[in-house]
């Protein structure tokens, strides 16, 4: 019933608010049945030449920005009848129930058409996604096994080991409802995923995916994929739920009561409630750890903020004082965090944070809010402001000043709140953070914010974190709570 139309009409662009979308729109996903091959986000067919980079322990270094993984497209799963019926139903509905169209994680091994950044250290490899959800996976390469009593999650629990130059990632404990591919092939909680990442040279990587699920498949489903390095392009901050007009328009395309669409009635119209943090353990005593090779301070660890409210108010211009007063009078009803939008670079959530450190880049991950990340580039790169002039968390460059990591961040939008009381800022915000680890158990960050549009003078304060030994970040998918999907 799809109509096609060619419009050749003189038009004048204007800003209005229509809220209609096509049922075909799927949050960036190709449609089921779309032509196979390398789509617009897939990058070059052949990556740049050069030798395979290696980590200090001699293992391949997977670090880099990679294009969306392209599938071979010719390996179909051998599904059990109940699973095949679900896939047929999804196809008949045009994929309207797809999680990705609702900004919920697709779940591995689904390959989005966007970039993925690998961030590798000898004991931990991070997979940082540009989209559909701007989240991360952690592959522990430390000899550990899957913990017992795992809670099912969208991304599962991943433990990895090296087989020669191939990183073998073993993942279990998946949330049953998620869509791990575009067809919506169902899976059970016993699904077992093995991903084998093999960086062949500087610019090319192969990936072999094996899905075993005796409750849904008649045998292992093996998929071979390739990707290429994107040396000249940086990942953007993809905030899927910022302007997603699809969910309200996909109802008509499905009648399934068990679908995500069916759960839209459970949506929390007032937003997600504040998280209840666990009590942080007492920070351990000991000297400041240092990188054994370079001697620089090692900021790595899982950190818990000691306070989430800022100690004072910025000195606001009258216009921004008015914005702040309005937000306070509104008692947080329009708090972006309640609707799963990013906290930005200044605001902290009570759930833990994690720092992972390389010599040329530092990753700051957070458990709560958007379950996302910031990256601090230490390699004197020029911030690509032409591609991302206004993001929630900005573009961050870092450098060491003795034992202090100085991070300078620009490229903000004006949408995030500086804390839960609604302190505003403008898109002219310029943030400088000075990270200091005076001993093993403490991290102090001195923040100085200049904002010529919003503040009459720079605003400075210090935030403290304590180390939480033995803690690990848990998966937190705000959108799934907001939509009542669990």
């Amino acid at each position, binding site marked *: 019933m799809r109509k096609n139309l060619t419009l050749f009409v003189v038009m004048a662009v204007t800003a209005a608010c*229509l809220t209609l979308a*096509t*049922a*075909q729109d799927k949050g960036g996903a*190709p449609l089921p049945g779309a032509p196979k091959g390398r789509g*617009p986000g897939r990058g070059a067919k052949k990556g740049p030449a050069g030798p395979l980079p290696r980590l200090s322990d001699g293992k391949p270094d997977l670090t880099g920005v990679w294009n969306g993984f392209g599938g071979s497209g010719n390996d179909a799963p051998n599904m059990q009848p109940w699973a095949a019926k679900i896939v047929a139903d999804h196809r008949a509905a045009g994929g309207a129930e797809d999680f990705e169209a609702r900004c919920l994680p697709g779940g591995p091994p689904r390959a989005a058409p966007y970039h993925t950044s690998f961030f590798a250290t000898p004991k931990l490899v991070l997979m940082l996604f540009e989209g559909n959800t701007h989240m991360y996976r952690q592959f522990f390469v430390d000899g550990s096994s899957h913990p017992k009593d795992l809670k099912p999650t969208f991304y599962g629990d991943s433990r990895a080991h090296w087989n020669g130059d191939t990183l073998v990632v073993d993942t279990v404990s998946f949330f049953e409802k998620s869509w791990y591919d575009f067809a919506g092939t169902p899976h059970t909680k016993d699904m077992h995923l093995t991903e084998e990442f093999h960086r062949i040279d500087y610019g090319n990587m192969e990936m072999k995916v094996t899905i075993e699920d005796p409750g849904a498949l008649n045998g292992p489903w093996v998929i071979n994929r390739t990707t290429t390095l994107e040396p000249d392009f940086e990942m953007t901050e993809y*905030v899927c739920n910022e*302007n997603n007009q699809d969910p309200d328009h996909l109802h008509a395309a499905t009648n399934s009561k068990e679908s995500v669409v069916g759960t839209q009635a459970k949506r929390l119209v007032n937003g997600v409630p504040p998280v209840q943090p666990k009590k942080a353990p007492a920070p351990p005593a000991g000297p400041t750890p240092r990188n054994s090779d370079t001697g620089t301070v090692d900021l790595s660890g899982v950190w818990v903020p000691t306070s989430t409210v800022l100690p004072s108010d910025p000195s606001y211009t009258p216009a921004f004082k008015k914005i702040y007063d309005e937000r306070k009078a509104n008692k947080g009803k329009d708090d972006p965090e309640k609707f799963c939008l990013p906290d930005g670079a200044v605001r902290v959530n009570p759930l833990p944070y994690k720092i992972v450190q390389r010599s040329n880049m530092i990753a700051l991950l957070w458990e709560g809010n958007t379950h996302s990340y910031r990256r601090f580039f230490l390699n004197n790169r020029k911030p690509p402001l032409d591609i991302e002039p206004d993001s929630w968390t900005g573009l961050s460059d870092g450098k060491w000043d003795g034992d202090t990591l100085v991070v300078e961040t620009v490229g903000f939008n004006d949408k995030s709140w500086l804390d839960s009381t609604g302190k505003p800022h403008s898109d002219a915000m310029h943030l400088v953070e000075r990270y200091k680890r005076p001993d093993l158990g403490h991290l102090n960050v001195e923040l100085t914010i200049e904002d010529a549009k919003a503040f009459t003078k720079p605003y400075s304060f210090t935030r403290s974190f304590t180390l939480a030994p033995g803690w690990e970040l848990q998966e937190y998918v705000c959108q799934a709570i907001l939509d009542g999907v669990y």
Partner: protein
Amino acid sequence: MEWMNPHARFYVDVMGTDGKVVNWNFELGAIPVLLKQGWRKDSLKQGDQVSVEGTLAKDGSKSANARSVVLPDGRRVFAGSSGGNGPANQ
């Protein structure tokens, strides 16, 4: 222009043959995909005249998934949207 994810959108006043102006909602692709095709946040400005080829919404509303856009400078660019696989109807 709404330069936001999951897909950018732009809104256009279209004057029909009857002289009436109707506002249309055109959906583009995701920002990362658009960026790689050369789109930028300021590629379309208020007051620009553009031509759009796209796929209509099923519900008959004044919205469409853009397939290609002819920019004010005459460049014809792929819109990066999922509607890009629709059959051409020139």
